[in-house]
């Protein structure tokens, strides 16, 4: 079946450092991949999405590249800020109204 794996449950960093949150997926379809961010007591919201192989997509300083050869869509940022502390979810839509979420990664940024 379709699945998304996020290997890190918690990532802690000092502000100004780079970050990469891992996301790999399994599907037999040609999917769309998404990153959603959920700040404390807020609704999850879209950060990035892509379906194009080997093309970098960026938003609000975050970027990700879909690599179909390795089934990966890692989220990166070159310099994290305190306001980036949140839960980050990778999600897969293989089509047909189905959206599968990973288990999430909590990012904690300290001063």
């Amino acid at each position: 079946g379709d699945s998304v794996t996020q290997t890190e449950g918690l990532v802690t960093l000092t502000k100004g450092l780079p970050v990469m949150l891992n996301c790999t997926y399994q599907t037999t379809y040609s999917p769309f991949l998404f990153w959603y961010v959920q700040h404390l007591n807020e609704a999850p919201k879209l950060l990035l999405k892509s379906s194009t192989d080997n093309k970098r997509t960026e938003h609000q300083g975050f970027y990700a590249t879909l690599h179909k050869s390795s089934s990966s869509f890692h989220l990166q940022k070159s310099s994290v800020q305190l306001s980036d502390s949140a839960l980050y979810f990778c999600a897969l839509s293989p089509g047909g109204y189905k959206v599968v979420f990973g288990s999430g990664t909590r990012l904690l940024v300290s001063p």
Partner: protein
Amino acid sequence: NSKVIQTPRYLVKGQGQKAKMRCIPEKGHPVVFWYQQNKNNEFKFLINFQNQEVLQQIDMTEKRFSAECPSNSPCSLEIQSSEAGDSALYLCASSPGQGANERLFFGHGTKLSVL
């Protein structure tokens, strides 16, 4: 601010009680999803609708969960007889279309605590 409105924000029930939560999707969005987010922040898909029709749902063999999206009324998710394991954040999300590329727009959720 989220345009998907979920009520109530918090719901406290005793075991065996009914728990009902509502969702008004963003205007013009025909597709609605319900997810259960547990204490480990994991998303569990429950059911989705296009307009009033169920598209997909998990095997609710216990029949404790029911959901509907009636015309001109909020969507709702109801647990007939709450159990402690149902304590979670219930998230409603809507989508403007049916394609795989469509993003989900989430509400703030209803946090259910079953005592």
